[in-house]
């Protein structure tokens, strides 16, 4: 088996890399693919918390790289889906604990075991980011519709373009968009962001309070049926698998009394 190694990155912190990694991972696993999530944010590990697997972590990525354990021993199986695995980061070390060559080797090994290897990159463009993209063949760039996040995403895309030979495909996920603010011209819309970044769009995820609840619970929203953001992440997973899925209609949603009633009876409208 030769799987796909996809790095999830953003440049800016706090735009939702880890949330997206967890949700896309869960959504991909729901489609039946075998998935391994790799937390590369060594020293600031969070992915295990979002997945609700913190209490099951015994070994971590650094233990594998330094050969204190076998790769299989470090993989934490998800409690809901057996085809979803997590390779947690070390919390008591820092970014210098691994290097690019070690990551390449690790990704090669994971690729042979899983259909999808999703690498959650740390924020920044320094060694942590460089290690995260070292073994990747595709990239998902996450941004929010804010000037600063878009600026940083642009920088990241530039760095990814410089590695065209290794990273053959990079697509954008626009996270935390608020259709109402876009309609009022208070926020950049999908078109505005694409105008600047001019890369292929993989998905649009609306701002959703359910994300906060799911983060605290350790249950990614894409595993549950009735959330807007969860549906968005499931669509992203389907597009990653090559399906043609139309983008959500996020235009001009100023609430009228008609839409309010429709929303009331159909809360999962996206």
């Amino acid at each position, binding site marked *: 088996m030769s799987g796909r190694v996809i790095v999830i990155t953003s440049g800016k912190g706090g735009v939702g890399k880890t949330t997206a990694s967890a949700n896309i991972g869960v959504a991909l696993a729901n489609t039946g693919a075998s998935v391994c999530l790799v937390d590369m944010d060594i020293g600031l590990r969070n992915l295990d918390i979002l997945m609700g697997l913190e209490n*099951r972590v015994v070994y971590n990525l650094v233990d594998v790289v330094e050969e204190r354990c076998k790769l299989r021993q470090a993989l934490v199986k998800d409690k809901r889906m057996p085809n979803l695995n997590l390779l947690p980061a070390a919390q008591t070390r820092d970014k210098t604990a691994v290097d690019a060559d070690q990551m390449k080797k690790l990704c090669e090994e994971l690729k042979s075991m899983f259909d999808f290897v999703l690498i959650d990159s740390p924020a920044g463009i320094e060694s942590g980011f460089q290690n995260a993209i070292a073994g990747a063949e595709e990239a998902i760039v996450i941004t929010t519709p804010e000037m600063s996040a878009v600026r940083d995403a642009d920088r990241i895309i530039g760095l990814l373009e410089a590695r065209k030979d290794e990273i053959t495909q990079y697509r954008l996920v626009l996270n935390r968009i608020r259709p109402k603010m876009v309609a009022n011209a208070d926020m950049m819309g999908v078109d505005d962001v694409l105008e600047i970044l001019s890369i292929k769009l993989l998905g649009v995820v609306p701002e959703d309070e359910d994300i906060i609840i799911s983060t605290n619970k350790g249950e990614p929203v894409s595993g549950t049926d009735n959330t807007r953001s969860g549906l968005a992440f499931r669509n992203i997973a389907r597009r990653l698998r090559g399906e043609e899925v139309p983008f959500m209609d996020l235009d001009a949603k100023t609430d009228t009394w008609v839409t309010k009633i429709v929303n009331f009876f159909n809360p999962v409208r996206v």
Partner: protein
Amino acid sequence: MSKIAIISQPDQGVLIDVGGCASMQEAVSHLSSTLQVSSQFWKGVNVALNLGDLELTSTQVAHILALAKGVGVYPYQVFAQQPLTRGALLEHGVVLGDGKPMTLPAMTIKVPENPQDEDWVDESVNVDEESTVTVFYEPSENQLITEDVQQDGPEIQVDFEPKEEAPAPAQAEKPSKSAKTKEKLEGSVHAGVMYLRQTLRSGQSVSHQGHLVIIGDVNPGAEVVAEGDITVWGALRGIARAGVGGNNDAEIRALRLQPIQIRIGESFARSPDKNRLHYDNHHGPETARVVDGKIKVFKFNPQF
């Protein structure tokens, strides 16, 4: 970052420099990887040590010296800038160097990041009466948690009705147990108790070869490791590993025992899968120990 450098005066030998390290933890890990590069390397070499601005207590200095001794290195001179460290070194009868060490910069050798590349474990050096010098917990094959255990380890019972004190049989075993513990600790290079008056935050880690006492909290994401018991005068919310090296009689106790994971000897337990937004529910001081191969939590009984 640790460095090996040649001292500038002729015939002065080699300097191991861990002065650039930010913490005791880091210094010890660099030092152990430097020292264990090769067993033959240090034979007949004059070695000096630079601790730079590290603030180390007497216990920590003893630790470092034990580590060096384990591979046959007896530093003839140690450089340190902090008064606390210098005092501690004098206590252990170490010759202090004057000021900062002078080295030949051109000869600076960077120690490989990954000690596995070199002959990391040399049987002839490590396997003798000094074999306990390995400060950090190196899980060996027989200590590995199997995949089954990792997935479905027994849940720590802190969130259930706490049980009353252990039944009589467990108490009866007590005397032999403490004797055994004592024997084990006396056999290690640096036994005894390490006190730490500090709250350990996420990412911080402390390990000790004897008993470990933390006056403060151990937050989620922090890790405490000891060959003996672990006592936390505060809330234990991170990971605790007591009895590392196979001492199943070790105990973990805390004023608030709310860990993510604990391990005692070869036993393993994890917290229940539930929302951990609030930590206000607790049962008062509790002790975790191994009963019939499983970790159980008991209300703390001072007479015990």
